[in-house]
């Protein structure tokens, strides 16, 4: 079983990203389970969402305390919360940022990558320039870097889960997948 934790801020589409990942993996024949951490969602406040993936039915029903990988939708979260809490050694930390991975001083036992999902989101008009919705390009970058999801299933899931601007989201995801 693989467990993934998404960190974001309310309004960035973090919960939708974890759901779209689940959709894409289901399309590829996996069992999936995805759920947000509930209770504190407010626009701009830190949000956490989880996805479990397995080849067989998932019976486990509790939060994820030791994720295999984490996705960070907003680089400013790196200063306020420990996104690597409980993260397994060798796990990916994929951060939405144009900066070099070394900037974030993540411990050596993790694999770190950055991807500038914000500029892709802005380019395709997802959200506003001040508050871009980075979820789909970030999910695409995660899919490419980890190799968990193929482009075809990913785009199908992005189309399904984008509440508006479906084509723009698909194009943004495609571009992010190619660039990452």
């Amino acid at each position: 079983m693989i467990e993934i934790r998404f960190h974001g801020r309310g309004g960035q589409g973090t919960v939708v990203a974890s759901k779209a990942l689940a959709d894409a993996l289901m399309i590829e024949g996996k069992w999936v389970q995805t759920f947000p951490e509930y209770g504190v969602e407010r626009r701009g406040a830190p949000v956490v969402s989880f996805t479990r993936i397995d080849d067989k039915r998932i019976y486990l029903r509790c939060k994820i305390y030791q994720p295999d990988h984490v996705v960070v939708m907003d680089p400013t979260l790196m200063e306020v919360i420990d996104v690597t809490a409980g993260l397994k050694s060798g796990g990916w930390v994929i951060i939405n940022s144009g900066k070099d991975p070394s900037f974030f001083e993540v411990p050596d036992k993790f694999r770190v990558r950055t991807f500038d999902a914000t500029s892709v989101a802005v380019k395709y008009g997802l959200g506003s320039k001040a508050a871009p919705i980075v979820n789909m390009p970030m999910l695409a970058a995660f899919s490419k870097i980890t190799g968990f999801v193929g482009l075809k299933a990913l785009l199908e899931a992005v189309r399904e889960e984008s509440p508006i601007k479906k084509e723009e989201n698909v194009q943004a995801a495609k571009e992010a997948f190619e660039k990452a």
Partner: protein
Amino acid sequence: MKKVVMGNHALSYGAMLARAQVIAAYPITPQTEVVGFLSELCADKLLDAKFIKVESEHSAMAASIGASAVGARTFTATSAQGLALMHEMLHWAVGARTPVVLGNINRAMGPPWTIWTDQNDSLSQRDTGLIQYYCESNQEVLDTVIQAFKVSENERVLLPAMIVLDAFVLSHTSEVVDMPDQELVDKYLPRRKATYRVDPKDPHSFGNLTGPDRYYELRYKIERSMREAEGLIKEADEEFDKLFGRKYGLIETHQIEDAETILVASATVAGTARTVVDELRAKGEKIGLVRVRVFRPFPFQEIRKAIENAHRVMVIDRNISFGHSGIFYQEVKAAMYNQPRRPPIFGYIAGLGGRDVTPETIAEIIEDAGKRDRSEEDIIWIGLKP
């Protein structure tokens, strides 16, 4: 067709596929998505139902009773304080013999104000006469809506049924659900035909004043229907299996054949417990699991058979009857009292108000019970902070 579906929408899809004709509901966290989605389905004409907006849960159930009384297939959903506000009308629905399927998202009762899961809301309705199903997965939620209509509307039953799912742990968790084919659902669950219904062309009085000379027998008939429902729930489940390839039973057992230690749990806690049982089995421990799916009618025979040969039984309750103990524990224990073989039964309380129940919680329970020979305490608290 497979789809990643949240628990709340699994309820809505179930009502849609069952072709509910009347939906009356009032929104409450964490149930809101159930009725939000159903109102969309009605507005988009994907579901040909009358959606009645009401001003409270009491009215939601009152409207449901009215709809059911004229013979309509009726669905509603609520949670916690909403279910409590329905309480009077739940007794009414049972006494009036009006079948309604009610989805209840298990949310702990306030105050203190809370939105997270435990079972005290639904278990507080224990003695109303509702059929009660506790679900472990979103697939089971959807399938059980369809099954529950079949049982509830059966004229040997004519009792409302409540389908219970854990707040957030199921209600807001999305997972793979195989959507049943509408044609097959129609075959399984044809349109309701109500013999006894309010019909202006054929006037009768309903719910009239009933004196001591008849009331007693009417209660007897409700109990008889409840017992009848036990067999019909199994039948409906087996017929469902033939068409859709899935069944759940009154209880679900896992690895109990030679089990010396048996865990008894319900809802999603049972899923997590199963993962612990599998791990311990792999290490050679003789441990098994019983998941209680149907709480009312209480499956006495199946539970007795499942646990009578165990050396030690631990019941995990995500609920408490203050001044007594965990409610599933009371019921399981009572079911064994008059039996020739009755293993020691230990009652654990865990996960109230949405406290996470993890594999470590379950492991702690197993370890604790392993140190006890007899059950001397009526409540054993797990994970209690100082």
